[in-house]
């Protein structure tokens, strides 16, 4: 009768873990790790796409502004 009261309460209320918990946990962890790795790779691809898209948008904007500048120059020359 040397065990402390909280320890005794804890021992009485905590259900014993079933056998082979480690193996079951390992199997589920392997599955979650696989899915997680796949999702991380997908996310990395998505980030690359967003970056490429932003770059192409910028390129399209500069391309679009060149004809507009030329049109303005032509109008100014005509007015003169």
């Amino acid at each position, binding site marked *: 009768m040397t065990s402390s009261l909280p320890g005794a309460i804890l021992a009485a209320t905590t259900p014993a873990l*079933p*056998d*082979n*918990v480690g*193996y*079951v946990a*390992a*199997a*589920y962890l*392997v*599955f979650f790790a*696989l*899915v997680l790795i*796949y999702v991380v790779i*997908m996310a990395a*691809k*998505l980030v690359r*796409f*967003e970056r*490429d*898209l932003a770059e*192409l948008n910028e*390129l*399209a904007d500069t*391309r679009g502004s060149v004809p507009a500048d030329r049109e303005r120059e032509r109008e100014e020359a005509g007015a003169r």
Partner: protein
Amino acid sequence: MLYGTRLRALSIATLVTMTVAFALAFFYAPMDADQGFMQKIFYVHVPLAMVALGGFVFGGIMAVQHLRTRDPRYDLRSYVAIHLSLVLGAGVLITGAIWAKASWGHWWVWDEPTLVSFLIVFLLYATYQPMRFSIDDPERQARYASVFAVTAGAFVPLNFLAVRLAQAYTHPRVFATADGGLPPRMQWTFLVCLAGMTLLYVTLWRYEMTSKNTSAKLRALRRKLAGDDAVAPAGRSAAPSLPST
């Protein structure tokens, strides 16, 4: 933006189904009288194996479509299906080895037909990507890969049948027992797990397909905006190349 609302809905459905499935596996399905708690591995291992094998067959069906129509999109679908099934197949082998260790005390048992047959299928498909990579011409690569996918895809159900007909039933057969199958609560749990795993496969397949299509579209857009010089030459790749649209 890149990934549409349908894909988002599919992802949410997958997440919800998987969560419910694993909750059922741990809190609803009864403890197996023979194997005890370790039988819970069944709810992740078996659906994973079934979906992986189904994915190989799906890859074969898409390859048939490719050979019929010569449409490169079918080759891409077949490629992505096989690629994804290989990833899941690796998961099947690892979770199977863990279950074998817990159940029999060995990580691998060579005289067990279920294990060895799955390993054979996995190794067969493991040669798919190197085979693609070894062929330079994209058109020929796609055609040979489709022939491979059809042949190997037909091998999967034959292999499964051969194993079922084999007499050495030392693998823990918890889905078909002598007294008429799983108890209803285990069966329901298993079916929800299978549905979740199928949804996961479909979702990842859709993500991968969207990613490949987006990549091809971005390449085409870059070529249109900046000219051919701005796009690096594709180089040799195992992945199918979609025509620039």
